[in-house]
């Protein structure tokens, strides 16, 4: 993998994702709302990762395809897998950083209101948030390679809706596995706090993330990219 090209795509993606005023305002409102709810109503840390992920990851690859940016980017000798992994890394780290900052702010405010939030609790919440960001965005990147624009969000929401509506017709096991595919996450306590370590939980999460990225890379390799492909 070309580290320089990888870094350039990561920085360009950060710049592109975090410079859209409407998305930033919506993210800010969500973080503020979640923090307000955590401090005044729940008196516990509230994780905003999923909503932030959906906003910041929308069309991570698909928008580049439909706008013609990807066709320009690929005139450079950039391996498509490098481009894809850089996109995933950039969006995941941006979402995880925003979510962790929100959690840290919640912890400070909760402590100032007399609620005991330990450093360990904050670390566990941040770990869950970072793994949820990496997991959900791997799934969204896969969908984003398959459809143009922000169709990835439509697919993700549609699949969740189907799962919700079909819960009465399918066994609970199918529903549970379906949800764990769409929202892969790893809880610190549930995985590493258990004795012995929950190896199935760990391998399930890592397997879902790598499979999504692998399928996305293979699909992107087969995709014909042109200015007319959007």
């Amino acid at each position, binding site marked *: 993998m070309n580290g320089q090209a990888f870094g350039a795509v990561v920085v360009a993606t950060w710049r592109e994702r975090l410079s859209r005023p409407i998305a930033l305002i919506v993210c800010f409102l969500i973080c503020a709302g979640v923090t307000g709810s955590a401090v005044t109503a729940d008196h516990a840390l509230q994780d905003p990762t999923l909503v932030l992920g959906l906003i910041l990851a929308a069309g991570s690859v698909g928008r580049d395809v439909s706008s013609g940016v990807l066709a320009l980017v690929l005139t450079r000798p950039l391996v498509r897998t490098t481009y894809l992994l850089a996109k995933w890394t950039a969006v995941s780290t941006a979402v995880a950083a925003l979510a962790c900052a929100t959690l840290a702010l919640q912890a400070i405010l909760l402590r100032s209101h007399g609620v005991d939030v330990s450093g360990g609790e904050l670390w566990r919440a941040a770990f869950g948030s970072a793994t949820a960001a990496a997991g959900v965005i791997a799934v969204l990147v896969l969908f984003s390679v398959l459809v143009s624009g922000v169709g990835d969000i439509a697919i993700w929401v549609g699949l969740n809706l189907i799962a919700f509506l079909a819960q009465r017709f399918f066994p*609970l096991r199918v529903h549970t596995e379906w949800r764990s595919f769409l929202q892969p996450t790893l*809880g610190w306590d549930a995985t590493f706090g258990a004795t012995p370590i929950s190896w199935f939980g760990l391998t399930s999460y890592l397997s879902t993330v*790598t*499979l999504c990225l692998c399928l996305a890379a293979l699909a992107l390799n087969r995709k014909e990219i*042109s200015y007319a492909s959007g």
Partner: protein
Amino acid sequence: MPPADSAEAPAAAAPQATSTRAPPRVLMALAALLLMARIATGVHDAYSPPRAGGLVHWLAPGDPAIAEQAGHKPVLYDFSASWCEPCHVMDREVFSDAESANYINSAFVAVRVADEDQSEAATALRHRHVILSLPTLVVVPHEGKEPRRIQGFPGRRQTIGFLRTAAQAGIP
């Protein structure tokens, strides 16, 4: 317009050491390895000894003892399944721990609703509490108070914290 990065690139293009469509070999190997590990750990868990329920005195859905005891303490429903790996972890970490189990036995009427139990009482409970994922713990306090629930296994400490809060809220 031809694709910007088509497989049939012009011959005049500068030769590259690596194709831009190079297959992600390392990623494919990693994904295959982790998928095999996932299957292996899943099979291992499936053939592990069946869940004993730890040290908690579970009642079955529809047991007449539930109605008798429910007047004195809140009812704790444990919606779980033998195929549910986090349920196994919760069994080991919470229900097999003497201190936690003693607390649950003293504070709740504990009812286990296994996914495999297709009896009328179990099915009605699953519908009433809209169980979407496993494990789910639902604490039903006395009349007039809202049930409290926790989905998934967030770890021993948080589960016990939830049970203590729910038990306090459910005291008549």
